């Protein structure tokens, strides 16, 4: 793999944790082995400081300059190298990168909504909320809130925010407990990378890093708890980005949300050897999704059909 020639990428990759699906299976740390699953990680380490979210290839000049500058005007998402770490906190991996790529891909739509309040539930390392705040830019008066059930994750998120010069309120809580009354109807952007790995129910919410991936039956236990409160939280123009695994049955999730009055579409679909990830986006059906350029919102049943075709590639 060409990336491994670069010592800076070698360091980044050798510290990469396994993606959530592998956390249950393997306990030894991964190496930069050129395994297929690391392609996205390597790619993200390359492009994460490029400007304007454009997918550029690296010029391979060996320069480290653009990785090290904290407040470069070109920076648009968080730098993996500036993300704080803790042994009990899930580090940015393919799922985190897919979610940030989805936000980048939808950046024009996000900016057009002029969100007042953005909330990330389950912020972990802080990579996603930091990236969201950076890609939105600082001039819009947007308020960012991040929650995590793990106090170690909350501290790591604080450190990641600080190392990028980004402000957000970080709260230790279960999903949004303690915030729901005051935030009801006012969340404009909601982002959730849930514990999505199918596990026995008793592993859900367990201590330490397990809470970041243990998702119970079909990986849906925590996702379903969140789906039950999305309608309460979201503003009329709200957008909800949810990362799912094929095993979570994203088509069914879209049907559940449709009954609550939300339209949906896939922003990003990405497969590795271990898992097939989708980033789903939901918005209130009576509000036009600006990214659709006026065409009717994608129906959730056609989305289900698309997902079952994609599942072939698992």
């Amino acid at each position, binding site marked *: 793999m060409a990336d491994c020639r670069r010592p800076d990428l070698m360091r980044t990759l050798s510290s990469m944790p396994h993606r959530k699906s592998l956390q249950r299976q393997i306990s030894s740390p991964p190496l930069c082995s050129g395994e297929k699953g690391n392609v996205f990680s390597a790619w993200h380490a390359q492009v994460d400081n490029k400007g304007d979210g454009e997918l550029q290839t690296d010029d391979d000049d060996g320069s480290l300059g653009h990785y090290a500058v904290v407040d470069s005007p070109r920076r648009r998402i968080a730098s993996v190298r500036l993300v704080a770490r803790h042994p009990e906190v899930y580090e940015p991996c393919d799922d985190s990168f897919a979610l940030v790529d989805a936000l980048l891909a939808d950046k024009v739509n996000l900016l057009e909504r002029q969100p007042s309040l953005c909330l990330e539930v389950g912020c972990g390392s802080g990579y996603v909320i930091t990236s969201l705040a950076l890609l939105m830019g*600082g*001039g819009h*008066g947007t*308020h960012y809130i991040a929650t995590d*059930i793990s106090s170690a994750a*909350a501290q790591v998120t604080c450190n990641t925010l600080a190392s990028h010069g980004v402000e957000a309120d970080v709260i230790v*809580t279960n999903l949004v407990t303690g915030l729901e*009354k005051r935030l009801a109807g006012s969340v404009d952007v909601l982002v959730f990378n849930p514990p999505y790995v199918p596990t026995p129910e008793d592993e859900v919410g367990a201590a330490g890093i397990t809470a970041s991936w243990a998702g119970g039956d079909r990986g849906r236990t925590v996702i379903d708890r969140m789906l039950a409160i999305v309608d309460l939280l979201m503003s009329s123009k709200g957008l909800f980005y949810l990362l799912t695994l094929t095993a979570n049955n994203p088509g069914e999730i879209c049907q559940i949300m449709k009954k609550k009055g939300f339209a949906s579409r896939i922003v990003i679909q990405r497969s590795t050897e271990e898992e097939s990830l989708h980033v789903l986006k939901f918005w209130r059906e009576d509000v036009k999704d600006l990214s659709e350029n006026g065409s009717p919102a994608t129906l959730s049943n056609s989305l289900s059909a698309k997902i079952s075709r994609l599942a072939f590639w698992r």
Partner: protein
Amino acid sequence: MRLLTHNMLSCNIKGVTKGFPLSIEVQRLDTKDADFNPDFLRNIFPKLEWKAFHDAAVSIGLNDIPEQVDPTMLEDHEFLQKFHHALLEVHLEEGALICPETGRRFPVTKGVPNMLLHEDEV
């Protein structure tokens, strides 16, 4: 934890009707400079529970926040500076938030409030 954060939190223990505002127990405060952004202040103003913000400010020793406000004050630079400082620059680093109905104490550690409930409180 900034007073902005405090203004968004309430106690959600089973049986609690309002649980807001939480009173603040101070062990250690810190002041950190934040970028002055009038747009942010104007954006957040209508979302704040002003009385809760005012009372919280007084309880941590910030006495220059007026009790009564109206949106025209958002054009007054001097007011915006005081509002900015109290809302965004003073941090509760160590202490607790206390439910006005049950007295339940939610700890604030290294600037982060912990709102997790015990099983019998859900």
